[in-house]
């Protein structure tokens, strides 16, 4: 490595140029996907198939993770519970934790790994085996055939899975709470749940689901679509897609909390 390569100005310049290039290419990618909306006869049937794969295929893992998360939240609540606090607070704690944070974020991270990795690998393989070039060569848009169906399917199904995760997490939290805290009754739990619950909390959870869905769909599709040659290129694309999506989900989580909850 030369001394020039270590020059901070060069490194900074390279990072800025790479970031701007990627941002530009991502914008074009999103623009081309939006343009493909007109070809609805092509993408609608494919989107339904993808939606089925995401929804049914991810349901089990989402239920398992949500159930354990709700249960662990209840166990921690019982461990930290102070006798000076009213017991219905347990219901508040579990419901608000699950709806505002744990349900959407964990669902997002699970789907980033399960769906995002799969799509990045699929599209990357299609790129390196010239299947995407083949579509182009036939005068067909890869965006209406491959990209838009995945984005639409994700944007529909991720919020649905988020709601499922919320419900399962709360029910598991209730059952675990009843088991861990003999003094807690379902009535107390419901009282706590309703007392501090605002309808906006549910909307917030779904809004997060939509925001995460965009990250889970657009980033892996973009990274896979632009995969470099060979098996190594597909492997790198898959890893990059999962890492980038996970980081963006956490970033969006903080951003949405700041924007929507601070007020």
């Amino acid at each position, binding site marked *: 490595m030369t001394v020039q390569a270590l020059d901070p100005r060069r490194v900074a310049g390279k990072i800025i140029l790479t970031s701007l290039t990627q941002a530009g290419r991502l914008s074009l990618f999103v623009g081309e996907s939006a343009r493909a909306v007109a070809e609805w006869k092509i993408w609608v049937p494919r989107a339904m198939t993808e939606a089925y794969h995401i929804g049914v295929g991810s349901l089990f893992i989402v239920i398992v993770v949500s159930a354990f998360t709700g249960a662990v939240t209840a166990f921690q609540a019982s461990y930290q519970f102070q006798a000076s606090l009213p017991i219905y607070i347990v219901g508040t704690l579990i419901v608000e934790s699950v709806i505002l944070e744990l349900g959407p974020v964990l669902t997002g991270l699970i789907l980033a790994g399960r769906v995002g990795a799969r799509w990045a690998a699929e599209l990357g393989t*299609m790129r390196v*085996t*010239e299947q995407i*070039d*083949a*579509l*182009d*060569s*036939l*005068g067909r848009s890869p965006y209406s055939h491959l990209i838009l169906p995945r984005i639409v399917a994700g944007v529909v199904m991720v919020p649905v899975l988020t709601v499922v995760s919320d419900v399962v997490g709360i029910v598991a939290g209730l059952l675990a709470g009843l088991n861990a805290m003999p003094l807690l009754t379902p009535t107390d739990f419901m009282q706590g749940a309703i007392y501090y619950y605002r309808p906006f909390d549910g909307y917030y959870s779904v809004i997060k689901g939509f925001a995460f869905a965009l990250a889970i769909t657009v980033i892996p599709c973009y990274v896979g679509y632009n995969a470099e040659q060979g098996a190594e290129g597909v492997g790198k694309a898959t890893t990059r897609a999962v890492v980038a999506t996970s980081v963006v989900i956490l970033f969006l989580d903080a951003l949405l909390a700041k924007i929507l909850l601070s007020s």
Partner: protein
Amino acid sequence: MIHLEGVRKAFGSQVVLKDVDFDVKEGETVALLGPSGTGKSVTLKTIIGLIRPDAGTVLVDEENVWTLDRAGLKQMRQGIGYVFQYGALFDSISVFENIRLGLTDETQYGDLKFAEDRVVECLRLVNLAPEVAKKMPGELSGGMKKRVGIARAIAGRPKYLLWDEPTSGLDPMNADIIDALITRLDDELGVTSVVVTHDVRGAFRVADRVALLMEGEIVLQGTPAEFIASDHPKVRAFLERDRDTSHFAA
């Protein structure tokens, strides 16, 4: 007619095409020969607009491929069938659906009866049984995948066929079958073909004219007889190397 003039293409610091001038006339079959990695496939992809050259002109039917708008590029591509090196079949859909995608006319694509008939016809043209249509690409051998790729390329009745290494990776018997298929399809369909290959024997068998691409430039264009008679040192070196390799393989 396909016309390339002064085409240059570099990937990073690696210059693949320096200055390519290349012509294909109506109805003829031209083989683009050259060692691996000399930019033959890149040349082919610039013709159909899959790779944008850094400089130069690419004309198809006197239309500059790289100044066409979106609709024009789509229309131009619909007149060209591209046979990919490894078939490039979509492995999540059946052979029928793969070939049906080649029906570039949306009305024909949407007419299931027409599509079924056309798929069977295309399979017949590439010597495959109609039952193959029901199979998934993963169930096919390498040679069959190539033939399905050809069937997809001809499904839309293109005016031009671009063949990217049609015989690479095949045993000599299957390579001969594909060579015979190229000749037969050119005759039966009346298409204009560009065949990219490093197989000299196959190129001489199928082509009306041969062009040799070496070190980013077309070294020679001519009939197979002119090619063999050429005393150009690069042509001689390429032919000698092929002969040596053939002996080694034998």
